[in-house]
């Protein structure tokens, strides 16, 4: 049986400007080192140019790095025992290049509850769109968080 959870309903679907982020060559290279990424499109600027790109590309999940820096309001108005990251989706829409400046707009997509053996859990789903300095949408990221109530 579904349980209602108290949350700030005015946030649902509301686009919230959530910050501006610069994509640096050093950041891309550090990301690649940290995750063992060796694709030359992301690690070798000359190679990327020879493939027709203006400079280094960011790996597809690179926008995930910016998510924790988004300014977002608290959603639930009830006490939470534990929070977990339940899932995440990245949808790369266009290449992201070193030197790009990305603007993030985030929206609360959904809040729902499930009740299981360990009690009631609330799931909070946010979707964030990243737009580059030319006004092109370059990536969409959807995150789901689980809160034990």
């Amino acid at each position, binding site marked *: 049986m579904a349980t209602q959870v108290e949350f700030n309903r005015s946030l649902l679907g509301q686009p919230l400007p959530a910050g501006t982020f610069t994509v640096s060559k050093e950041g891309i290279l550090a990301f690649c080192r940290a*995750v063992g990424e060796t694709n030359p499109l992301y690690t070798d600027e000359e190679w990327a140019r020879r493939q027709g790109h203006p400079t280094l590309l960011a790996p*597809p999940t690179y926008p995930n790095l910016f998510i924790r820096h988004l300014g977002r309001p608290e959603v639930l108005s009830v006490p939470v025992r534990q929070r977990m990251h339940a899932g995440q989706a990245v*949808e790369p829409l266009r290449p992201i290049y070193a030197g790009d400046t990305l603007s993030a707009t985030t929206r609360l997509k959904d809040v729902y509850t499930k009740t299981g053996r360990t009690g009631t859990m609330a799931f909070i789903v946010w979707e964030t769109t990243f737009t580059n300095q030319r006004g092109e949408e370059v990536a969409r990221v959807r995150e789901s968080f689980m809160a034990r109530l």
Partner: protein
Amino acid sequence: MRSFADVHLGDTIGPVEHTFTTEGVRAFCTLWGQTGESRFTSEEVARREGLPGPIVPGIMSMAVLSRLLTDWADGGSLRLLDVIFRQPVPHHQPLRLVGTVTDLRPEGGQGVVEVDVFLERADGERLVTGKALLAVPLDAG
């Protein structure tokens, strides 16, 4: 360069072995702006939060799954990676990155390959599961 004609339903991607190290997770956390001790870097903090030990950030697991897919696509591009974090991912444990092709369709002049993707332990226990869409050229020429 992998082309659509090279891909078949049921094809396996990987498996590729991967072990997350505490040093690697620390480097990732620094880059991510997660400074200070946390469930990702500290045994003590992790245990206080009810975890068996420090864990790997979900977005770091996603990054290595993305690497598996784009290495395999060899010139193709990732259109979607959608994952569920089913269990904490531990440090210093040999894990497997693996995918299975579940659907194929031509779309907009490219081939779209749908893949079930997993980060799993050596015993087959799946820690992260997901779906991915890759776009590859219809032919290698």
